[in-house]
């Protein structure tokens, strides 16, 4: 038993850090460090920089641009990116549809799509959830009817993140209405500019335009855009959802936020009493740091035991989703505590340019409530732990 990284892994990590320092544009680095976001253009440029280095899709097979890194190195990479912080790869392509395509897709699909995903030439979004099928995905209603040379999709999808930037969407639709719930579903790849496809933004409580509703009205999809076998879409969706469970811990982000909190709490940008001098605040911060260490170590244990492998739904990784979301939410709440009255400044709406150092606190807190809801609500994760691990 040894928690220390090997000399090789340490050198690897230092190389990553040097690369991030040298390659991430300074204004973007500064913005990310103070709670801001990368624009779609910045994310595209950054993904290409990574791709040029061969690191844009580290976990993919080498033949399609992957690195061949061990799970531990993949984890170190993700952690360093999150801690720096640098933009994370767009998961819809790199972690969701990409692996489905290289595992179940045709050779033509692989050649057509994978290189463009690896460089973010295509921006993918997800068409799984529906207004009446969230955590209960198997009850989806969107249907695809056979048509000349392909299918015609009709239905409604919801909670499609960043769909407004996407040019492709992967969609689950029912292709056999006589089959039982999980059966008779197929997996389609659909251009966002297909006639009959309409996107309507959903405004969120954090003021952001992050998710969308999508309306499919008889949208034609050619046969070549069906992935794998017809009516096996549910299997591919489960494969997709079980991937990257270790990615849900997102400890690096929590650590980066805790560091920022400690800096702000030690010396509030506007002066005044330092929260870090308050005994109750000190304890909350130390408690969350302990939580972060515990989660990181649990993650390392799971990675070390091979529990983060692709396509394998290790129920222990439900811990990562549960504690990862809770830790992220708790750090966001502590950021709100640090900001104090400065959290009153809302960056949206009719502002005239006010002091902005606390202005991401409330939106971040509001936004991260989603973490315990999406990707299998935490209630679902608890049920998975109880049933799959404890046998209840």
């Amino acid at each position, binding site marked *: 038993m040894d928690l220390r990284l090997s000399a090789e892994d340490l050198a690897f990590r230092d190389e990553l850090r040097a690369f991030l320092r040298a390659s991430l544009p300074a204004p973007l680095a500064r913005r990310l460090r103070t709670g801001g976001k990368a624009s779609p253009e910045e994310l595209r440029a950054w993904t290409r920089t990574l791709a040029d280095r061969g690191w844009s899709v580290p976990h993919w097979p080498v033949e399609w641009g992957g690195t061949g890194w061990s799970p531990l190195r993949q984890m170190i990479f993700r952690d360093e990116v999150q801690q720096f912080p640098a933009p994370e790869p767009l998961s819809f392509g790199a972690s969701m549809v990409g692996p489905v395509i290289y595992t179940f897709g045709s050779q033509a699909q692989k050649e057509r799509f994978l290189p463009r995903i690896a460089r973010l030439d295509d921006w993918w979004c997800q068409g799984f*959830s529906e207004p*009446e099928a*969230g*955590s*209960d995905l198997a*009850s989806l209603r969107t249907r695809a009817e056979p048509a000349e040379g392909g299918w015609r999709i009709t239905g409604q999808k*919801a*909670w499609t993140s960043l769909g407004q930037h996407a040019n492709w969407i992967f969609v689950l639709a029912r292709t056999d209405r006589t089959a039982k719930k999980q059966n008779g579903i197929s997996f389609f790849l659909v251009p966002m500019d297909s006639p009959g496809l309409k996107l309507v933004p*959903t*405004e*969120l*409580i954090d*003021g952001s335009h992050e998710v969308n509703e999508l309306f499919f009205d008889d949208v034609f999809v050619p046969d070549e855009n069906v992935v794998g076998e017809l009516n096996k879409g549910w299997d591919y969706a489960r494969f997709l959802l079980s991937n990257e469970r270790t990615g849900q811990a997102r400890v690096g982000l929590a650590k980066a936020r805790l560091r920022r909190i400690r800096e702000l709490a030690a010396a*509030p940008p*506007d*002066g*005044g*009493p330092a929260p870090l001098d*308050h005994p*109750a*605040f000190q304890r909350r911060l130390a408690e969350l740091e302990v939580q972060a260490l515990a989660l990181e170590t649990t993650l390392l244990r799971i990675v070390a035991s091979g529990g983060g492998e692709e396509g394998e739904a290790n129920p222990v990784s439900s811990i990562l989703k549960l504690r990862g979301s809770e830790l992220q939410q708790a750090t966001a709440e502590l950021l*709100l*505590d640090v900001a*104090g*009255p*400065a*959290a*009153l*400044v*809302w960056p*949206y*709406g*009719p*502002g*005239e*340019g*006010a*002091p902005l150092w606390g202005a991401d606190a*409330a*939106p971040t*807190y*509001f936004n991260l*409530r*989603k973490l*315990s*809801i*999406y990707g299998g*609500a*935490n*209630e679902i994760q*608890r049920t998975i732990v109880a049933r799959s691990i404890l046998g209840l």
Partner: protein
Amino acid sequence: MDFSLNSEQILLKDTVTRFLGAHSPFESLAAARAEPFGWRSGVWQGMVELGLAGLPFAEDDGGFGGGPEEVMIVMEALGAAQPPEPYLTTAILGGTILKSASESARAGLIGQIAEGTLRLAVAWQEAATRWSADEITASAEPSGSGFLLSGRKAFVLDLAGASHVVIAARLGAGLGLFLAAADRLTGRTTGYATPDGRRAGDIDLGGLWLEADALIVAPDEGGEVLSRALDAAAAALACEAVGAMQAALDLTVEYLKTRKQFGVPIGSFQALQHRAADMFVALEQARSMAMRAIMAQSSLPSEASAREIAAAMVQIIDASRYIGQQAVQLHGGIGMTEEYRLGILFRRLTMIGRLFGDRDHFLDRLVAGPSLLERIEP
């Protein structure tokens, strides 16, 4: 001992609730926020006509003689409906300060509040005060026949639509409270939206000259008057929170009954039932403490009353956080959307503990004093 409302109070409750239902339904709030001040002069005028603005003031001063209980009733109703009109800042926070102004200074002003023509904002915080009036650095010094002010104020709630602003500034060894008409601040303010759908702003006081009679509370009393006003505002806010929590719980229970997953209403899942039960318990405990805070104002000396209000705020902030978070969680995605009514309730419940002090701030006050339990045994 008595926890019931009298018939006039029940009538007040019904009237306010009905008014808000008719003139400020949830669907109207987005448009309200887009108004120049972030609120609607028509709805404000309607509230004035119901007598709400003048409610907390003595009849001799031109008000309608309501007490803390009437304030509780109004604030609970406002909490459930979340109209952005500047009631708390004008009638309670600013109003309580006006009550303590010298008779000559406040002559007619309270009447103007009751008539809806005077709308107050209170500029007490600064970028670095963190809810502590002791940290105020803005200052005033005698200059000619008046005072010259310096420094900056921040986080002034409802600044945009205020007709007058109370400004707290060091004066000699004390804290002076000045009243300035909003037009005196033209070009000195920076406005912004707040996370709970209201407005606030900062003020640059540098070189602002005010007449002698702008000093409405003398520096030897200013600190005490401000802190009593903040207490009254916190007690009112506690009641608003109760209204908002009740509304959030009602929405959640309704959602649990109607939303189906895996073929059954999600309210049939035991884990969700128990969560809703815990929300109910949290709400009732918070309601009890808000009622204590209200009753303390009419029955206890101000020091003891301040402690009861701080205790109430600790409970209210905990409950607001828990109920707000769980309401969103039990709703799932729909709870994250702006178009659904829970959003504004959640955002306001989040800010309840950031307006006049956070949980640490209020708990610090309790820790500094003797046991809370001694108080309840006169």
